[in-house]
């Protein structure tokens, strides 16, 4: 594994991930008959936030300050594990899927601790919801990954997401469809998109993820938003690897292909957000349990 080439997709992810928000926004604007924000707006937003100072509450302890940093660090580690293109991921070892899943758990844990540390009841409420829903998405994700592992007979992320569809057994299409459907719901839920959460809501009572970051400002908020973009990029790459593990075998071509694919997923998210209303909070667990069931079915087909 040559380091320079496997670093290329990671660099692309760093540069291009905020652009996904623009794609989603433009898709929604297209459906709503609006013009949409300038394409580089997310970059301006993050740059503006990074230039600002931060205000800290007197009740907040250093835990609050560590939250965004730990989150960004965790997501960067997950990025290094994510296979994007020909040479696979930067770092890969047997069973790295477990580390991958729990890096996201660590990111969430840091965010939840920081939210609770502010002492605001709203943020406690958001943290509680976030943890409740992620407990269900984690099951769906791990079961889906197990199904993929059973299908491809690989237990590393670059192994199971880089195998061409042609080498699957007869049940390959069924398994990939079920797991992909589950992963898409996980993708929407983990990145707090509609129908689970609305990233643009301004009503604290209905917020989930956004309410946890209400008290963060300036640099911290910039880091959180950037980490959010990277997370969206990573989960889209995993989804893409499940549905269409296509490879050219040429690092440049592969990177371009994966970036284009992730852009397509952003369009898909935009379409979902334009055509669906947000689900009631009580119905969200049903959706997530449904995703878990689809992953479980995939696993049953693989084993049965």
């Amino acid at each position: 594994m040559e380091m320079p080439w496997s670093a290329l997709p990671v660099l692309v992810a760093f540069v291009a991930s905020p652009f996904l928000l623009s794609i989603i926004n433009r898709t929604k604007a297209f459906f709503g008959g609006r013009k949409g924000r300038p394409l580089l707006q997310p970059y301006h937003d993050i740059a503006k936030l990074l230039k600002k100072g931060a205000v800290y509450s007197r009740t907040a302890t250093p835990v609050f300050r560590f939250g965004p940093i730990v989150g960004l660090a965790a997501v960067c580690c997950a990025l290094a594990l994510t296979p994007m293109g020909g040479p696979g991921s930067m770092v890969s070892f047997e069973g790295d899927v477990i580390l991958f899943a729990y890096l996201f758990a660590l990111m969430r844990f840091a965010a939840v601790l920081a939210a609770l540390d502010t002492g605001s009841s709203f943020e406690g409420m958001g943290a509680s919801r976030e943890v409740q829903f992620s407990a269900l998405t984690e099951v769906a994700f791990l079961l889906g990954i197990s199904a993929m592992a059973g299908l491809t007979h690989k237990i590393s992320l670059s192994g199971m997401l880089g195998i061409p569809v042609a080498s699957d057994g007869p049940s390959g299409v069924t398994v990939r469809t079920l797991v992909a459907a589950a992963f898409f719901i996980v993708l929407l839920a983990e990145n707090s998109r509609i129908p689970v959460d609305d990233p643009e809501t301004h009503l604290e009572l209905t917020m989930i993820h956004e309410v946890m970051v209400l008290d963060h400002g300036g640099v911290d908020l910039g880091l959180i938003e950037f980490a959010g973009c990277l997370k969206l990029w990573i989960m889209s790459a995993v989804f893409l690897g499940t549905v269409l593990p296509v490879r050219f075998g040429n690092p440049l071509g592969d990177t371009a292909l994966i970036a284009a694919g992730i852009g397509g997923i952003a369009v898909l998210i935009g379409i979902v957000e334009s055509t669906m209303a947000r689900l009631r909070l009580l119905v969200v667990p049903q959706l997530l349990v449904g995703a878990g069931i689809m992953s479980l079915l995939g696993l049953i087909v693989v084993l049965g």
Partner: protein
Amino acid sequence: MASLINALSMLLILTNFRLLGASRLGSCIQTVAIQAVLLGLLPVLANPQMPVRAMLVLAGMTFVKAVVLPTLVRRSAREVQVRGEIEPLIGFTLSLLAGVGMLGVGIAASRRMALSAQYASPLLVAVAIFTILTGIFLIVARKKAITQVLGYLVMENGIYSFGMAYAVHETFLVEMGILLDVWALVFIMGIAIHDIHSAFDHIDTDRLSTLKE
């Protein structure tokens, strides 16, 4: 063929989960009809060289289960003016989780059953048991009399797919007997629901137990 049967079994499992999670009566009835259509396709896939007579019987049965019975249920629901929401005694999320458990029971049971030679697919046996259990669960865990009729229909679908899985050729004989029973049941339940409704203004079965002579 085997992969198509597997895919159909998957769809059957998903329809069962939809039944367990659906909160509207209309979508429940629709799902039962979809399930009947899927079950109608199954023998054709399992046995493509089917004689024309068997094909006609199959088409007739599918028509009764997918069109006639759902229409009857829908009509009696309209006549007694049932509200569109299903009132569960066990919540929807919990029902889905119970569904996972029932699917597990189905798979465990299908592993232990003796495999006969004329055996369509191991997954199908699990699906059949799961469908029967789903039907029973719907009868027990939903409040209205009308969802109990639906539960019986689902159970009948399960028994049918069980017959499919074990006796690929003689399946219709059993099926037609059961279908007759279900047919009668839907009529009787329709009348019963109507009578309950005209006597008590509601069809909540959990309140019937408080009645005294």
